[in-house]
């Protein structure tokens, strides 16, 4: 039996290309770049010193005492609340957020000599989620998902499951991650970062840059939503590669399985997919694997289905990425435009799909597929339905 769809009522974000949902969408359509030299922590000793750093965040009052990850989440939550009220009793409002890094920057501080209990406690990965719950007054379930860079998709899937199980009436779900020296050092050591621009699916693609941000959506059982909605989550799946701790399975078998499970849950076959928001990191391996998987899943339609990546303008925002991409899918349906893949000019023999080059595409995709991959062999897929006016 097909599970009940879950409504995505509204969204709120903070990103390197825009501090709220409207600015984010405008930035995607205009090809804005949020990539700059990182200023908030030392990077002079790293090979790559750029990323999608958010230069300005609310800093007064309560914010001053919060770690950056929590400030990102609360900024996105404020944007969300400005667009939709949390109309439920507090005990029935849940929080489910995904993150690759949690409060690790606070752990850096705690290890580096900050002696307070607050620093040590904030270093736990689920601290920002509980800060967000406090900020929202949510007293229902509070869960943190960490499937690395697929976290923002897994969180939406878990939130949908909790709603269907009647564990809450409203859930604020999404993903976040802040740029910090810890993660910059890590990716620098892996040599995954490019010294050039990010070029997803392009023949000159040479790696990724990191970014930061937070993205939240308000979710409810579809039948409970009387007013307007941004769209629906029809299906989701999170699966494992079972091949390598850090590298994706070259066969893409796990990602394909996730897509197939998500489509099955949605009660759709691949012919229904009108648009794909790809993980599209701009690394040679990821983009090749995703392209091959999409060809297998979409079959003869593959060349005709637009596929984009929005990571070139913001960097890879890790835990926030998949939620930002899901929101983008729904905004594409609402506004009748698919943002182009910034940085893509021409593909190669292994990346030969329609990657929406050069400018936004006038189209109103009702059913979208969003794919994500992460360390630990994590794969996630979301099947989304936009509201087409």
């Amino acid at each position, binding site marked *: 039996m097909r*599970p009940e769809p879950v409504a995505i009522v509204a969204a709120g974000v903070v990103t390197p290309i825009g501090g709220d949902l409207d600015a984010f969408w405008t930035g995607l359509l205009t090809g804005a770049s949020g990539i700059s030299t990182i200023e908030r922590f030392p990077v002079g*000793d*790293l*090979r790559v010193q750029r990323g999608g750093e958010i230069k300005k965040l609310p800093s007064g009052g309560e914010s001053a005492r919060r770690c950056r990850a929590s400030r990102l989440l609360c900024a996105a939550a404020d944007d969300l609340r400005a667009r939709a009220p949390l109309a439920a009793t507090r*005990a029935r409002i849940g929080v489910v957020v995904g*993150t*690759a890094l*949690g409060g*690790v920057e606070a*752990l850096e501080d705690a*290890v580096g000599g900050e*002696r*307070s*209990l607050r620093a*040590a*406690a904030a*270093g*736990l*990965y*689920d601290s920002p989620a*509980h800060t967000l719950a406090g900020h929202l007054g949510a007293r229902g*379930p*509070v*869960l*943190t*998902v*960490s*499937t*690395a860079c697929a976290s923002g998709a*897994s969180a939406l899937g*878990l939130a949908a*499951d909790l709603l269907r*199980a009647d*564990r809450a009436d409203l859930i604020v779900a999404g993903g976040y991650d802040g740029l910090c020296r*810890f993660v910059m*050092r*890590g*990716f*620098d*050591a*892996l*040599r995954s970062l490019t010294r050039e621009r990010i070029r997803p699916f392009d023949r000159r693609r040479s790696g990724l840059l990191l970014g930061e941000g937070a993205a939240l959506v308000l979710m409810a059982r579809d039948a409970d939503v009387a007013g307007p909605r941004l769209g629906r989550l029809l299906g989701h*799946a*999170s*699966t*494992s590669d*079972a*091949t*390598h*701790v*850090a590298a994706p399975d070259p066969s893409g*078998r*796990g990602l394909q*399985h996730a897509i197939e*499970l998500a489509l099955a849950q949605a009660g759709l076959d691949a012919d229904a997919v009108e648009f794909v928001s790809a993980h599209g990191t701009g690394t040679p391996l990821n983009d090749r694997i995703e392209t091959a998987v999409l060809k297998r899943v979409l079959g003869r339609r593959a060349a005709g289905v637009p596929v984009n990546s929005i990571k070139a303008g913001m960097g890879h925002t890790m835990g926030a990425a998949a939620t930002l991409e899901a929101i983008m899918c729904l905004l594409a349906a609402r506004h009748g435009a698919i943002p182009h893949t910034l940085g893509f000019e021409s593909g190669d023999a292994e990346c030969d799909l329609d990657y929406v080059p050069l400018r936004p595409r006038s189209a109103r995709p009702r059913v979208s597929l969003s794919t994500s991959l*992460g*360390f*630990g*062999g*994590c794969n996630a897929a979301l099947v989304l339905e936009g509201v087409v006016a």
Partner: protein
Amino acid sequence: MTGVSLAGVGVITGWGRGVDAWPDDARRVAGDRAVVTAATPPLDGERFRRATRECLLGVAAVQATLDDAGISREAIAGTHTALLYVTAAAYGSSNRAFIAAGEPGSAGALHFPYTAPSAVPAEVTIEYGLRGTYVTLIGGATVTLEALAWAGRLLAEGACERALVLAVETFAECADLFARDRRLLSRPLTEAAACALLVLGARPIEIRAGDHVSDMTARVDRRVGETLACGPLLGLALARASGDDPWTVTGRWRGRTAALAEA
């Protein structure tokens, strides 16, 4: 209503393997030890050369579960077994080591992926060939209860045929950080890895918000110490060993209390 059945539970703690290794009073036996450290499982082989201690504990806990259930590793391989992993603290050890390594180049590229909490279940999936539903949740005992309830729903929906709920908690490397929180010092922090194998069965399980600690959970706390996310799984192990039927396990984390009960 479709229910679940507990097919096996594997437990490793700082006191040793299995329920029988637990003392009657962890606080008394721990003496002045703030952390009761679990021995690193002796897993050999090239593939485990870089795996962290928490990864090895996770793999060993799954094997202990299979042993308890009396099934082979081949039986769980493939896309029909879900793995839900929970931890509140285990990644801290690896993260701290990476932070302490300091400057670029001094911490190898191969260490960084092991700072992700998903490294632990990743090693488990690779070892046992698990390619089904796969999620890592962060938090303490209430989150493990959510994972168990979710596993039950996955089974009921036919999203999997078997579900492993695994938790690993290591503390030794970050003991000084945990020592800042007086709430964690009322009993020893006991390292643990525990796993439950759920399959379809006759009895539904239900999670609900709660306001008290069950007798089962109180017994685990007294005998083992503080194990954060592992607590509910240790409760299931004790219920299985004691023949408690039906069982109720509870958990607390960050001011929230929940209960999971078998109907």
